[in-house]
């Protein structure tokens, strides 16, 4: 377990790192894509500058060939292109100025181009004008002076230098663009690789976690199964012990009964004999024969008074024996009854507790009216349990409440109930004489009673009730104070558990 503990912390860290990397890669990608776009735009611009510069030269060449054609043919139609070329060239130079605004070297080139154009077109216009005025020779001389050719040559040089320079810039920019693209590719590849890596690590971690969870679950299941087995064994042990006690109680009470029949039988026989015995004794007594005899006789076996006293002692002894036998018989019967109850099989069914309590209240109506007692039954939750057992439980509690009223207080028995998810809880409350808190546990014990022993009873009822409640899987308790009344609280499971022993 110790080496597994750092793992759950590693996962969020890994995920955090992965996420950060992804963000960095995304930002880099966006930046690089933007740069690639700029590179391309600049490259296009460079190529456009090259193109336009060439066109400027082309325009000048066209103007030149047009001028020469005119001079040669003296036909005005050749001048059409000559007139078109100048504005075209000027227009191109203007466009170039805009395109190369941020390049001082190019602006200088354009200044030079502009000057050259001025000079060139001035020279050509002059030749054309001379020819139009009919001074064809002067025009031809001007052409032959090579002034125009030199200008054109210079212009060509300037432009071709500029074009070479632009081509160099274009090459640079192409290289840069390729570099950016490569970088972009690497970054994207790295990102993809990272995503795959993090994904793989996550999968491994998840698998590991699920394996650990499975292992833990298996362990838990094993522990549970083991626990269940232990509980099963314990329950079996307890059931067996309980059955043993029940059998023991049953056999002992039966076997105790047998000698009791004899004791009672022969005591009664003795009682029957008593009359005969004392008649015989009285016959032997001198008093009976001669009532006037000398009372001072010390040898008198038994005077009448003495015989009567012996008779009284005899009767007293017999009475005690018989009372004790009666008590013992009741106790044995109580034990028998409890053990027999413990052997009864429960039949679980849905019990309408209100109907059951109403029926119990109905059977004690007569007594309740005699005592001036009132029994109130609230709305009670139903339970699935053994009807006979619950009936005995509540009949006993109601009977006790009726039995132990308080002098001068009209008895009120109030039965209320409530339920939670698993259990139904019933309160049987009375305003009777109450139970001393010291006796709260004792009252549930067999043959134990509390308070004034001025009511008939053997101390079996509550012991019986507690045994039944426990067998139903519930519990019982009491809250009470002397001269205030008692509340017996019975808690029963709402559903009958299949595993519960139906037989004790």
């Amino acid at each position: 377990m110790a080496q597994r503990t750092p793992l759950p912390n590693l996962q969020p860290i890994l995920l955090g790192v992965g996420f950060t990397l992804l963000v960095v890669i995304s930002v880099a990608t966006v930046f690089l894509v933007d740069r690639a776009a700029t590179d391309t735009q600049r490259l296009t611009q460079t190529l456009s500058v090259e193109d336009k510069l060439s066109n400027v030269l082309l325009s000048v060449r066209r103007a030149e060939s047009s001028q020469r054609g005119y001079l040669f043919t003296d036909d005005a139609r050749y001048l059409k292109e000559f007139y078109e070329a100048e504005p075209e060239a000027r227009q191109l130079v203007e466009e170039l100025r805009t395109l190369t605004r941020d390049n001082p070297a190019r602006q200088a080139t354009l200044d030079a181009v502009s000057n050259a154009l001025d000079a060139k077109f001035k020279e050509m216009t002059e030749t054309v004008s001379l020819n139009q005025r009919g001074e064809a020779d002067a025009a031809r001389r001007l052409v032959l002076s090579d002034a125009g050719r030199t200008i054109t040559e210079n212009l060509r040089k300037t432009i071709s230098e500029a074009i070479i320079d632009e081509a160099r810039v274009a090459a640079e920019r192409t290289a840069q663009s390729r570099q950016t693209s490569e970088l972009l590719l690497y970054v994207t590849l790295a990102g993809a690789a990272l995503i795959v890596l993090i994904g793989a690590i996550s999968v491994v971690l998840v698998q590991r976690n699920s394996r650990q969870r499975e292992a833990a679950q298996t362990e838990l299941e094993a522990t549970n199964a083991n626990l269940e087995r232990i509980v099963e064994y314990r329950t079996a042990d307890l059931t067996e012990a309980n059955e043993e006690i029940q059998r023991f109680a049953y056999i002992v009470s039966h076997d105790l009964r047998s000698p009791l029949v004899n004791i009672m039988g022969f005591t009664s026989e003795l009682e029957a004999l008593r009359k005969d015995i004392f008649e015989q004794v009285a016959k032997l007594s001198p008093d009976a024969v001669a009532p006037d005899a000398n009372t001072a006789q010390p040898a008198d076996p038994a005077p009448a008074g003495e015989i009567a006293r012996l008779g009284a002692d005899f009767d007293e002894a017999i009475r005690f024996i018989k009372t004790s036998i009666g008590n013992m018989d009741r106790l044995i019967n109580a034990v028998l009854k409890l053990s027999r109850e413990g052997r009864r099989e429960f039949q679980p069914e849905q019990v309408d507790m209100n109907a059951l309590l109403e029926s119990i209240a109905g059977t004690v109506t007569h007594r309740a009216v005699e005592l001036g007692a009132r029994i109130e039954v609230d709305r009670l939750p139903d339970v699935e349990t053994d009807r006979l057992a619950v009936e005995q439980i509540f009949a006993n509690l109601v009977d006790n409440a009726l039995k132990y009223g308080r002098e001068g207080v009209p008895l009120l028995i109030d039965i209320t109930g409530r339920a939670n998810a698993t259990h139904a809880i019933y309160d049987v409350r009375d305003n009777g004489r109450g139970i001393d808190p010291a006796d709260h546990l004792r009252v549930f014990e067999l043959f134990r009673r509390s308070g004034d022993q001025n009511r008939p009873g053997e101390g079996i009822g509550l012991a019986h009730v507690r045994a039944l409640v426990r067998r139903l899987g519930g519990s019982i308790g009491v809250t009470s104070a002397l001269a205030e009344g008692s509340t017996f609280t019975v808690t029963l499971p709402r559903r009958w558990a299949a595993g519960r022993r139906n037989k004790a």
Partner: protein
Amino acid sequence: MSSRTIEQPVQIVMIEDDEGHARLIEKNIRRAGVNNPISPFANGHDALRYLFGADGSGLVNKGKPLLVLLDLNLPDMTGVDILRRIKTNEHLKRVPVVVLTTTDDAVEIQRCYDLGCNVYITKPVNYENFANAIRQLGLFFSVIQVPSPD
């Protein structure tokens, strides 16, 4: 029984291990004016030997008017076994059996009647009731008809 006494009086076989109980039962039967012979047995084996004879066939008592008083709690066997053997024996099955015992278990009572017991009586601890019951049993014996010997 009076009708039978002329030929052969009904013999009461009492199987009761508790001497005191046996004595009290006998006393009260006599008090009821029943004078039939009573053969007491304190354990199951002796009683079976008497009822079924040395060969165990029950032939010895064939045709004899008998009435069995049976306690269920015996030291050497349960009275239920004795009851079963009597009621399944060819020659003894018609002999009336009165179970007189301390056992008041409903299951046991049912079992005895199922096996063919004729009367089941629980011994009460209250002696008056006990004496009365036995005396009435005695009266019952005096009018009971046992099957004719054939």
